[in-house]
């Protein structure tokens, strides 16, 4: 039973959602009830995905003098040149930069995929460079969710199996995995596509599966490398909306590399990287951005 306010007569109505007519003025309450239920679902999902078991440090990612030098024969190429950046928990951060700017290298550092030549990168106040291979794998499995430009689903597995794969590594029981996987796919709107192979899904759907997979072990950070790069405008927008919604509702930190203005539009901060250094950091409020509506789209 929940209480609703009738939009026509202002009377308070109590209903379980089966009777959706106002008893005094017979107004249709279906819209109000649906809205309320949807809001409640989101709150519950947010509550569920919110990671409150970790001691909350204000900054989830901190880098100090992060430097990475690649040695190619006798030539030394510095991809990163002393990057200091703090990323707040629950932030939606976009990283921009031309190709070869060190963007990818920076990404790999945060994701624990590469080790810095100098400096350090802290995730949850853990220095990634100090971790053993096993601890690093644990960190990748539990703390970070990856979304790739090319989706990178395992082609021989169904959508559900793709989502449950990180759960296998995390040691979940098979019942738990099935149920969670199913719900995560429902969360991204693919409830009818559980047993489809990636090749049977559209690009946007594949990326949705990838989002569900990234959420598999309730990560604190989602690292998205050009998540809309291989999608058309409309499906790209859907993925951005999905990510933003997850960010707002569950407080997961999202760090994305992107050129997509729609992505910039929903970001809290935009970091510009050039020649292995941070060129400037902008706040969303400070920049003027006109994102036009797409043809045929209703806003």
């Amino acid at each position, binding site marked *: 039973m929940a209480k609703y306010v009738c939009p026509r007569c202002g009377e308070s109505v109590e209903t379980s959602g089966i009777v959706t007519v106002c008893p005094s003025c017979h107004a249709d309450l279906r819209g109000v009830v649906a809205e309320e239920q949807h809001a409640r679902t989101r709150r519950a999902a947010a509550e569920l995905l919110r990671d409150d078991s970790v001691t909350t440090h204000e900054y989830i990612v901190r880098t100090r003098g992060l430097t990475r030098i690649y040695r190619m024969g006798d030539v030394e190429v510095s991809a990163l040149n002393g990057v200091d950046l703090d990323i707040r928990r629950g932030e939606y951060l976009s990283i921009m930069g031309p190709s070869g700017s060190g963007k990818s290298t920076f990404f790999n550092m945060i994701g624990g995929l590469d080790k810095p030549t100098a400096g350090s990168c802290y995730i949850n106040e853990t220095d990634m460079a100090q971790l053993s291979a096993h601890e690093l794998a644990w960190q*990748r499995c539990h703390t970070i969710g990856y979304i790739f430009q090319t989706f990178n689903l395992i082609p021989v597995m169904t959508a559900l199996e793709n989502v449950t794969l990180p759960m296998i590594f995390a040691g979940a029981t098979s019942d738990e995995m099935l149920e969670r996987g199913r719900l995560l796919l429902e969360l991204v709107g693919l409830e009818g596509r559980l047993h489809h192979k990636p090749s049977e899904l559209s690009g946007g759907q594949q990326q949705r599966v990838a989002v569900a997979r990234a959420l598999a072990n309730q990560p604190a950070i989602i690292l998205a490398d050009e998540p809309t790069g291989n999608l058309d405008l409309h499906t790209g927008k859907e993925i951005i909306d999905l990510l933003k919604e997850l960010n707002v509702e569950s407080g997961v930190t999202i760090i994305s590399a992107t050129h997509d203005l729609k992505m910039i539009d929903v970001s809290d901060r935009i970091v510009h990287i050039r020649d292995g250094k941070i060129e400037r950091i902008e706040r969303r409020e400070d920049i003027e951005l006109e994102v036009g509506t797409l043809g045929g789209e209703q806003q």
Partner: protein
Amino acid sequence: MTISMMDVKRLAEISGGGGRRAVQVQAQISLPWSEAVRISIKNVILRLGRAAITGTGIVLGIAFLTYVWSDAVFSDGVKRAALEQERILAAATESVKGSAVEGQESGASAAEEAQETKAKLSLQQQEAAAEEERGARRAWLVVMALLVCGIGITNSMLMSVTERFQEIGTMKCLGALDTFVVRLFLIEAAVIGCLGSFVGLVIGFLFVMFFYSIKAGFSVMAKVSWPQLLLYMLLALLIGAALSLISAIPPAVRASRMPPAAALRTEI
């Protein structure tokens, strides 16, 4: 983004309690064998083309091995059958001779007989030596054939690793350890090895059976030592699986060393 309230409650239930992010305790990363086997078998089934190429090496190698071994067993059987026939024939002529020329003087014929047996013995010796040499040559051939097969498998698996580098990188991004990747590839190799050896076994055996039933008639089957043949077959199966496993080690190690960042690369 529409999920029903009930789903969320269920989601909360299953991820709640003890299962919920035990961050303080650094949980183990694991890949249970049952899951690994399931994934590997699926990989083999869904990439049948690639598996067939890898498996053909094993099929041919084991078919050859089985051919050589069963050929030896069959020819033994044929020889035994011939020997038996000879003995029966000899016994028959002896008895005929005995009854026909009874009471003849035996001084000269005894010497003759001794010479005959001597000649027979040296002939047997020669034959044994030739047989030994043939055996050695056959063993050499078999070893070479298996070696070539092994290299073929390694090559084919290396191709398969290269094809899947993005997939492997992705798995590592999702938290897979190097050992998981090695395990998956080795199980896959073992599955292909077992299946391939079995097919090779059947082909090799059928070939020999066909060959001998034409050459020596179907009756030779009765003279063949079946337990020995069975032993050889089992051995061939084992050798096939082992060969496949050993050949898969270099590719599997290479796959496990693949940097996870490979998954982020866009160009393929």
